[in-house]
C-alpha cells in the first residue's frame, strides 16, 4: 500500500515550531508522524540541520535520561520452549515417551546380547505396540488433567489427534530405526505393523476411547504374537515378510476409518 508522506515544507515548518503552518496541517502532520517512521527520521534530520535550539534541548533531555536508562534492566526473555512443545505433545506425555524409548533400547540390548530369545528379534516383537502406548498416553483421561478443556476447543478432533500421534511416531520411529539397523531387521518388517497398530488404535479409539483401544490392542498383540513367539522361539507368521501385505491392508483400513469418523475425536468419548 503506498502512503503519502509529509512534504519537505511541512516537515521543516514543523521542526521550526509550526508557526508558519496552518493549524490543520500541524494536526495532520502530528497524526502522521505518530504512525510513520520515515517521516520521524526526516523530522529529526531537519531538526539537527536547521534548528540548533531544539537539537540542543533534545541533547539535554537525552543526557539526563541516558544514565537512568542504562541502569534499567531489560526484561528477561520468557522461556518459550514449553509453549511451542505443548502444541505437539501434552506435558504428561514426556515421561511415557521416555519409557517407550528406554524399552526400545532395552530390547535392542537384549537382541545384541542374544539372550534366551534365540532367532527372534525383540525389537521386531515390540515395535508395533510401542507407539500405541505413547498415543494412549496422549489421550488418557487419567494422565492428561486438561482433557475436558482440550476436548472442547476448536482445534480438538482429528488435527490434534494426528499432531500428537505424529509427535509420538517422531520419537519412537527413529529409536526403532536405530534398533532395526543394528539388528539387521528390514525396515518395512517393523514399520508397517507399527503404523498399522497406531492407525487401528485411533480407529477403535473413536468408538471406545483411545486409551481403552490401546490397552485392548496391546493385550491382543501380547497374546497372539509375543507369547507364542517367545514360547516357540520362532518368529510368528505375522512378523515375517509374507505378512506385509496384510499389515498394509490393516493400515489402509485404519486410516480410512479414522478419516470417516473424524468427528468422533472432538467429544469426550475419545478420552476414555
Amino acid at each position: 500500500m503506498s502512503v503519502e508522506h509529509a512534504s519537505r515544507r511541512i516537515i521543516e515548518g514543523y521542526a521550526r515550531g509550526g508557526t508558519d503552518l496552518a493549524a490543520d496541517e500541524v494536526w495532520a502532520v502530528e497524526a502522521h508522524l505518530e504512525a510513520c517512521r520515515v517521516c520521524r527520521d526526516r523530522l529529526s534530520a531537519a531538526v539537527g540541520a536547521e534548528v540548533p535550539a531544539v537539537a540542543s534541548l533534545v541533547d539535554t533531555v537525552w543526557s539526563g535520561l541516558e544514565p537512568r536508562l542504562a541502569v534499567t534492566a531489560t526484561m528477561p526473555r520468557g522461556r518459550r520452549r514449553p509453549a511451542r512443545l505443548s502444541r505437539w505433545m501434552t506435558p504428561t506425555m514426556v515421561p511415557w515417551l521416555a519409557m517407550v524409548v528406554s524399552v526400545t533400547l532395552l530390547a535392542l540390548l537384549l537382541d545384541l546380547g542374544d539372550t534366551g530369545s534365540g532367532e527372534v528379534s525383540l525389537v521386531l516383537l515390540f515395535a508395533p505396540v510401542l507407539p500405541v502406548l505413547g498415543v494412549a498416553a496422549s489421550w488418557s483421561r487419567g494422565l492428561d488433567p486438561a482433557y475436558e478443556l482440550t476436548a472442547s476447543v476448536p482445534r480438538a478432533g482429528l488435527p490434534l489427534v494426528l499432531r500428537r500421534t505424529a509427535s509420538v511416531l517422531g520419537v519412537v520411529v527413529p529409536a526403532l530405526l536405530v534398533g532395526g539397523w543394528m539388528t539387521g531387521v528390514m525396515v518395512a518388517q517393523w514399520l508397517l505393523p507399527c503404523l498399522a497398530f497406531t492407525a487401528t488404535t485411533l480407529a477403535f479409539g473413536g468408538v471406545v476411547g483411545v486409551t481403552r483401544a490401546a490397552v485392548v490392542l496391546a493385550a491382543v498383540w501380547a497374546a497372539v504374537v509375543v507369547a507364542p513367539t517367545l514360547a516357540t522361539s520362532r518368529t510368528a507368521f505375522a512378523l515375517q515378510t509374507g505378512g506385509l501385505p496384510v499389515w498394509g491392508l490393516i493400515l489402509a483400513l485404519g486410516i480410512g476409518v479414522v478419516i470417516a469418523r473424524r468427528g468422533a475425536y472432538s467429544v469426550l468419548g475419545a478420552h476414555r
Partner: protein
Amino acid sequence: MTIGKEHHMTSAVSAADIAPTAYAWEIQATGLKVRVGGKRMAVDGLDLSLGTGVHGLLGPNGAGKTTLIRTLATVLRPTEGTLEMLGESVGGMGEHRALRRRIGYLPQEFGYYKRFTVREFVEYMAWLKEVPKAEIPAAVQRAVERVGLADRADEKLKALSGGMVRRVGIAQAIVNDPTILLLDEPTVGLDPAQRLRFRELLQELGTDTCVLVSTHLVEDVAAACTDVVLFAEGRLVFQGTPDDLAAAGGPEHMGDSPLERGYSALLQGPGPGRGAW
C-alpha cells in the same frame, strides 16, 4: 524506535462485527435429551432459549447441570431433540470448529498443567482455540488482567492457591472473547472478596455475551444474574428473573432468604418438603 505496521490501515470495526445476527437466541434447545452412561437421560426433554445476559443455572446435585453445560460446550452429543447455538445446529458428527471458536468453557473439574505459568497456560489455550497468532499475546494479557492475575502471570500454576487457579480457569474461558460463555461452578474455592469481584466481572461480560453460570449458591444468582434457570431431574422447572424466583416462595417454605424460599417452593411443589436433603 520501531512500530510494526506503519503503512497499514486498520479499520476499527470488522465486517463480522457489524454483520446482522442470523439467530434470535444464542442458545435454543427444543426437546433436548442427552443420555449419559447406559440408560439414564441426564437431560430429559429440555426446552430452553437463552439470549445475551447472565443466566444462573440452579438445581440440586444430580439435576443434570454439568451434562447440560457439557452438551452446550459440544463435548457431549444430544441424543434427541434439537439444539441450535448461534444459529448453528449442534449434533451429528460435525466438529463445529467455527462455533467452538466463539464458545468459552470452564469445566467443573478444571484440569491444568502444574508446570506451566499462568501466561503459558492461557497462551496454550488461546492457541487451542485458534485465536489468530498475532492477537494471542494481547488477548492473553487482557484475559489475565480481567481476572486480576496480572501480577502473578509469570508464576507457575502449582504455586497458586485454589482460588487463583479458578481465576486462571476463568481467564482461559474468556481469552477468545466468546459470544457464549459456559461456566460450571466457577465460584467454588473463591473467597468472599474474590466472589464479589467475580460477580462484577460476570455483569460486565453479560452486557454483550450469553453467559451461563451453573451454581448451587442461590446468593450468587441474586447478585449477578439477569435470569434464573431452575433445573431438576433433567427438566426445566422455572425460568425468570431473580425477583420472580423470590416471589414464588412464601413464609411456609424452607430457606433463609426470599430466593432460597422460592427455590425450595419450586422444587418441592405445593406439598410438604420431601425430606431434609
